[in-house]
C-alpha cells in the first residue's frame, strides 16, 4: 500500500500523540504498521459489509413487510464470490505477513551481536566488549543489532513493542531477533511469555543512544574484560586447553578457525559450526564427536552457566589461528584463574 510520506507522517504524529498507538522507533515499525492498517481496513470493510447485510435484510424482510418467506435454496455464483474474495484477501495478508516475518527474523550480516540471558525474573545483557546489564539494554541507533538469546530456566519472551519485535527465549537453545533503532530514547522491554510469580516484574528498558553517546557509554561501563577475554580465562580454568591445545599431538580438535566452518563428525554427518553447535558440543560432547577423535571429552553440563557458555563461544569465535591457543596456554600458567562461575545451571 502506498501512502504519501507527508500524509503518513501526519497520521503517525496524530496517532502517537493520542496514546492509542505505540511509538515507531525502529526501521521495522513503519512496515508492521502499514500491514496493520491494511488489516484494519479489510476488517472494517468486512464488518460494515456483514453489518449492512444483516441489518439490511433484517429490516427489509421483517415480518410486517414480508409476511411470507420466499424459499431460496442457495446460489453457486454468490457462494463462489464469497469464497474467492475472502480467500484472495487472506492470501494477500499471508504473503505480506510472510515477507515481513522473513525481514524481522533474518538478521543482516553486518549486525552487531549482543547476548541476552533470560532468567526468572530478569533480563541480562552481555555486550561483546564485556559490559553487563540487568533489565537494561543500551544500543546505538542506526545500526542493526542482533540479539542472541537463551533462557536459563523457563520459557520467556523478549519483546520491545515500540520496535515491533518479539521472540521467544527458550531454555536450551539460542534464538535470535534483530532491529535497527531509529530514534534515541528509552523504550519498554517486556517479558511476554508467562514465566511464574513475578512475570509482570520481568521488564526492562532499552536505551537508544546516538553512536557518540553509545561510545561514551561503552567506555564508562566497561569491566575491562571483553566476553572473549572472559572466555579465554574460563577455557584455561575449566581445563579445555589440556586437550584443545592446537598442537598436532592434542587429544581434541584444534578450535582455531572452527567457527563458521563445516565439520565432519565420526557418525558421517557434516555440521555447520555456529553458536548453537558450540554450546551443544560443550554440554553434550558425546553426541558430536569430530571425525578422527576419540569420544573422551567430558560433559560440562551443570558446570558452566549460560553466561560462561556465551563467553566460551565468543572466545572460540575469535580464534582464527593457532596463535591464540598458544597464548591461552601461557595465560593459564600465570596465576590468573578465572572466577568461579556463578549460579550452577538449573535443570
Amino acid at each position: 500500500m502506498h501512502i504519501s510520506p507527508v500524509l503518513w507522517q501526519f497520521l503517525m504524529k496524530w496517532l502517537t500523540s493520542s496514546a492509542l498507538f505505540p511509538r515507531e522507533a525502529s526501521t521495522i515499525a513503519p512496515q508492521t504498521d502499514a500491514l496493520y492498517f491494511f488489516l484494519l481496513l479489510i476488517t472494517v470493510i468486512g464488518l460494515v459489509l456483514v453489518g449492512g447485510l444483516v441489518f439490511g435484510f433484517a429490516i427489509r424482510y421483517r415480518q410486517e413487510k414480508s409476511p411470507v418467506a420466499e424459499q431460496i435454496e442457495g446460489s453457486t455464483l454468490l457462494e463462489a464470490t464469497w469464497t474467492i474474495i475472502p480467500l484472495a484477501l487472506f492470501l494477500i495478508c499471508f504473503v505480506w505477513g510472510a515477507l515481513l516475518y522473513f525481514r524481522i527474523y533474518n538478521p543482516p550480516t553486518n549486525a552487531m551481536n549482543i547476548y541476552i540471558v533470560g532468567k526468572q525474573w530478569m533480563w541480562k545483557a552481555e555486550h561483546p566488549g564485556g559490559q553487563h546489564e540487568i533489565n537494561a539494554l543500551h544500543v546505538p541507533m542506526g545500526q542493526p543489532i542482533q540479539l542472541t538469546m537463551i533462557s536459563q530456566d523457563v520459557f520467556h519472551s523478549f519483546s520491545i513493542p515500540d520496535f515491533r519485535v518479539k521472540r521467544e527465549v527458550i531454555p536450551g537453545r539460542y534464538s535470535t531477533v534483530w532491529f535497527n533503532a531509529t530514534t534515541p530514547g528509552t523504550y519498554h522491554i517486556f517479558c511476554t511469555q508467562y514465566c511464574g510469580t513475578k512475570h509482570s516484574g520481568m521488564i526492562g528498558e532499552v536505551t537508544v543512544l546516538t553512536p557518540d553517546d553509545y561510545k561514551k557509554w561503552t567506555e564508562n561501563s566497561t569491566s575491562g574484560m571483553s566476553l572473549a577475554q572472559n572466555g579465554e580465562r574460563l577455557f584455561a580454568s575449566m581445563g579445555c586447553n589440556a586437550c584443545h591445545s592446537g598442537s598436532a599431538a592434542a587429544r581434541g580438535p584444534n578450535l582455531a578457525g572452527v567457527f563458521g566452518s563445516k565439520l565432519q563428525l565420526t557418525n558421517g554427518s557434516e555440521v555447520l559450526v555456529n553458536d548453537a553447535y558450540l554450546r551443544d558440543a560443550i554440554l553434550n560432547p558425546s553426541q558430536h564427536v569430530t571425525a578422527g577423535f576419540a569420544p573422551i571429552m567430558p560433559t560440562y553440563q551443570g558446570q558452566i552457566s549460560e553466561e560462561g557458555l556465551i563467553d566460551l563461544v565468543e572466545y572460540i569465535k575469535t580464534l582464527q589461528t593457532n596463535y591464540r591457543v598458544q597464548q591461552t596456554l601461557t595465560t593459564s600458567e600465570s596465576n590468573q584463574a578465572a572466577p568461579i562461575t556463578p549460579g550452577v545451571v538449573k535443570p
Partner: protein
Amino acid sequence: MSATSSTIVNLPDQTTATLPKRNYINAEDGMLSWLLTGDHKRIAILYLISITFFFFIGGAFAGLIRLELLTPQPDLVASDTYNKLFSMHGIVMIFLFLVPSVPATIGNFVLPIMIGAKDLAFPKINLLSWYLYWIGGLFTLAALVLGGVDTGWTFTTPLSTHYLNTHVVTAGLGVFIIGFSSIFTGLNFIVTIHRMRAPGMTWFRLPLFVWSNYAASILMVLGTPVLAITLVLVVLERTIGIGVFDPTKGGDPLLFQHLFWFYSHPAVYIMILPGMGVISEVISTFSRKRVFGYTAVAFSSVAIALFAFFVWAHHMFIMGVSNYSALVFSLLTMLVAVPSAIKVFNWSFTMQKGSVTFETPMLYAFGFLGLFTIGGMTGVFLGSLGMDIHLTETYFIVAHFHFVMVGGMLMAFLAGIHFWWPKMTGRMYPESLSKLAAVTTFIGFNLTFLPQFVLGYLGMPRRYHAYPPEFQVLNVLSTAGATVLGVGYLLPLLYLGWSLKYGAIAGNNPWQATGLEWQIQSPPLTENFIETPVVDYEAYDYEWLANKTQNEVTTVG
C-alpha cells in the same frame, strides 16, 4: 406476551393451558432417579446446572482479575494470587464450561430428538461422562482449595514441571479426567448420528445443528487423547522426572508446545462449531427460511474440523520453528479462515426474502455475527506472520479469543438456551427482560474487550499483574465494561429461574420451527416419540410445516 405482528410466537391460550401431565421431568420422582437416569434429557439438565455453576465460579475469578487491573500497581492481591486467579479462570472456563457447553447441554437434549431417536446410543456412557465431568471438576476445585495452580490453563513446561510448587498434578489430573468425559460425549454423538436416525432422515435432511455437533465430535474423539497424553507426560515429568521436555536430559521443551497445541487448536473448534450449529437453527427459524446454501454450510463444518488439525503451529510462530514451517502453517491458517467467512455470509443471506422476527435468540444470533466477525478477522491479523510477532502474547490475544469464544460461543450458547428453553421446561422466559439482557451483554462485551485490542497493539503483555501507568485508561474502560457484562450474565440466571415457576406455558412449537423436536410435546416424554417418526420432508421445510395440520402432534394428555 405482546402478540404484535412482529412476533411469530404461537402460544396456547394461557387461561386454559397446562403443562402435559406426563413428561420427562415428572416421569420419576426423587433425587436418585435423576442421579441414576439414562434419559439424555435429564442428563442434559444435570449438565446445564453443572456448567452454570462452574461458569459463575470462572466469572467470579474474571471479576477479581479485572478489579486488580483497575490500577497499574499490584494492589488488590499478591502476584501469586493473581497468577492463580487467571489460571483457574482459564482452566474452569475452557475445560469446565466452553468445551462441554453446547454439546453436553443443548446437544444432549435436542440432538437425539432432532434425528428422531429415543435416546443416545449409549445412555449409560452418557451418564458416566457426566460423572467424569464432576470427578474432574472436583479435582480442579480441590487444586483450588488446596492452594491453587499458577501455570495458566496451558500448563507450559518447564514452568509447570520444575519451577512451581503448586497443585499442578491435581489440576492436571482433573483436566485429564474431564477430557474423557468429552471423548465419551463425542463418541456417543458419532454413533448416534450414524446408527439411530429415523426412517427417511438422510444425511442431507439433518438439521445443521446435528452436522456441526458431528464435526465437533470428530475433533473431540481424535484430539482429546493427545491432550490426555500430554498431561500424563507433564505429570510424569514432574513426579519422576522422565525428561521428555527437559533439555538437560536430552528432551525438548518445544515438544510440549507441539503436543499441547495439537489438541488445543482443534479444541477452539470443539468450542465454536456447536455454537455455529445453534446459530444456523436460530437464524433459519426466525427468518422462516431454509439456511442459505445448506450443503455448503454442512460441508464447511466438516472441512473446518479436518483442517483444524493442521494449523497448530500458528501458536508458535515466534518460538523458533523454522521460517519455512511458519510459512506453511500461516498459509493453512488463512485457508481455515475461509469456511468461517463463508458461513457468516450464508447466515446473512438466509434472511434475504425471509420473514424476519426479532425474538431474544435472534438478538443473540445478531450479536454472535458481529462479534464472531471481529474475532475471525483479528484471527487473520494473527495468522499473518509478521503481524503476529508484534501481537502475540499481548492483550490483543486476550481480546481475540474472548471475541471468538465468549463473543461467539457464549452468545450462541445463550441464543440456544433461550431458543430451546420452552422445549426443555415447557415454559416461556419473559421476553422484554431477556431482550434487555441480550443488549446489555452485547454492550458490556464490546466495552470490555475492544479496548484490549488497542492495549495489545500498544504492547501490554497478557498475564500481567501490574503494568506501566500509561495503559491505565484503557484498563479502566475494560473493567467498567466487565461490570456491565457481569450484569448481562446474571440477568438470565434470575429470570430463567423465575420462569420455571411463573413463565407462560409454551406449547409444543412456540416458534413454529420445523425441527422434529418441535413436533413433540413440551417438555417431551421420556421416550421422546410414541411412534418412531418417518421423515418425508427436507430440513427447514417451512412449506411442509404450513401444510401440516395443527393436531398432528404427539401429546399425551
